[in-house]
């Protein structure tokens, strides 16, 4: 009759600071343990998001990343360390997350998201935390979430600035905000872009907080808002977003009915993951 039988003694101790919270309790912690969250990218945004979601006891964390750990990642991608250089990010991530919380099942997807695999992958999850670093993936994730009816916890970064929102089914999407990816010519080259290492730490952590709030059903989510963060000013600005009834994917008469594989914009083929960000449309570097 006691729910203590469902929580192990170790779990009660591990999650005690959650359970104490009136808004969480044992019931909330159980929701977290039963939750399934897909992280797109195990980079700058995905690192803190995954680590906090694992620490919170989210039952299943899927991680999509085909990339390997490079020395230039370590300035911000805190899932990985020197001993991980050259290893697949999903493998490195799974090890780090297991070390934080062996309760969490980590599912690795060592592949590039495409129109071919995205629906199958996100189908097994309650929501997606998008920490990708490129526009083709971001639009693909957005469209797939709209078509599959999944929540999309969006974050992007550029230089010293970050953008966040939560897109819920039927309540607007990334295309309502930015209907199309920027044309390839409009974006600066990979090497021109830079990012403050701690910036994805802040933005990815907020994504984790939003995901946890959605799982628990508490508080007010960023849905219907875009949160803009500027690390130089150390300022947050929250602007209202409205669902666009003419949106090509989530509008009243959608014109996009199947997934699109946009070209990778980056002209530097050797660096497909670390590319281009037009100012004003969020960042791509994660």
């Amino acid at each position: 009759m006691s729910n203590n039988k469902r929580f192990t003694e170790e779990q009660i101790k591990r999650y005690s600071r959650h359970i104490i919270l009136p808004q969480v309790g044992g019931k909330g912690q159980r929701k977290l343990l039963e939750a399934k969250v897909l992280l797109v990218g195990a980079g700058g945004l995905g690192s803190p998001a995954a680590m906090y979601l694992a620490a919170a006891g989210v039952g299943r964390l899927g991680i999509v990343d085909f990339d390997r750990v490079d020395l230039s990642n370590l300035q911000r991608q805190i899932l990985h360390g020197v001993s991980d250089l050259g290893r697949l990010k999903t493998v490195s991530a799974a090890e780090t997350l297991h070390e934080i919380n062996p309760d969490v099942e980590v599912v690795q997807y060592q592949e590039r998201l495409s129109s071919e695999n995205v629906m199958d992958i996100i189908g097994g999850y309650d929501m997606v935390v998008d920490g990708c670093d490129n526009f083709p993936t971001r639009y693909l994730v957005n469209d797939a979430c709209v078509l599959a009816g999944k929540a999309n916890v969006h974050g992007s970064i550029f230089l010293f600035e970050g953008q966040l929102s939560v897109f819920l089914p039927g309540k607007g999407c990334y295309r309502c905000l930015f209907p199309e990816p920027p044309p390839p010519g409009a974006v600066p080259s990979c090497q021109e872009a830079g990012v403050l290492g701690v910036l994805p730490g802040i933005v990815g952590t907020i994504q984790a907080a939003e995901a946890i709030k959605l799982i628990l059903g508490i508080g007010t989510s960023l849905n219907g808002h875009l949160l803009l963060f500027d690390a130089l000013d150390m300022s947050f600005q929250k602007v209202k977003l409205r669902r666009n009834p003419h949106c090509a994917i989530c509008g009243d008469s959608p014109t996009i009915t199947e997934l699109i594989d946009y070209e990778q914009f980056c002209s530097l083929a050797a660096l497909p993951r670390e590319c281009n960000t037009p100012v004003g449309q969020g960042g791509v570097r994660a």
Partner: protein
Amino acid sequence: MPDAVKVDVELDLKGEMCPYTFVRSKLELEEMEVGQVLRVVVDHRPAVENVPRSMKNEGQKVLEVEKVNATDWAIIIRKEL
């Protein structure tokens, strides 16, 4: 403890410290029905104040805190919500 109070669930938390005492009590209470009574026995002195205070904060009714013997205290809580 007044005879009128019928205890539905007993929880022995002797040897346990704060905040674990409250966490265990709260988890137990979550599984009970509104109106049911939980009796928690503790021997960690701070828990005698902390558990009742935390329970009140959560909107539960602390019916009684009684010294059972030289080392143990019983906290009797009725589930309100």
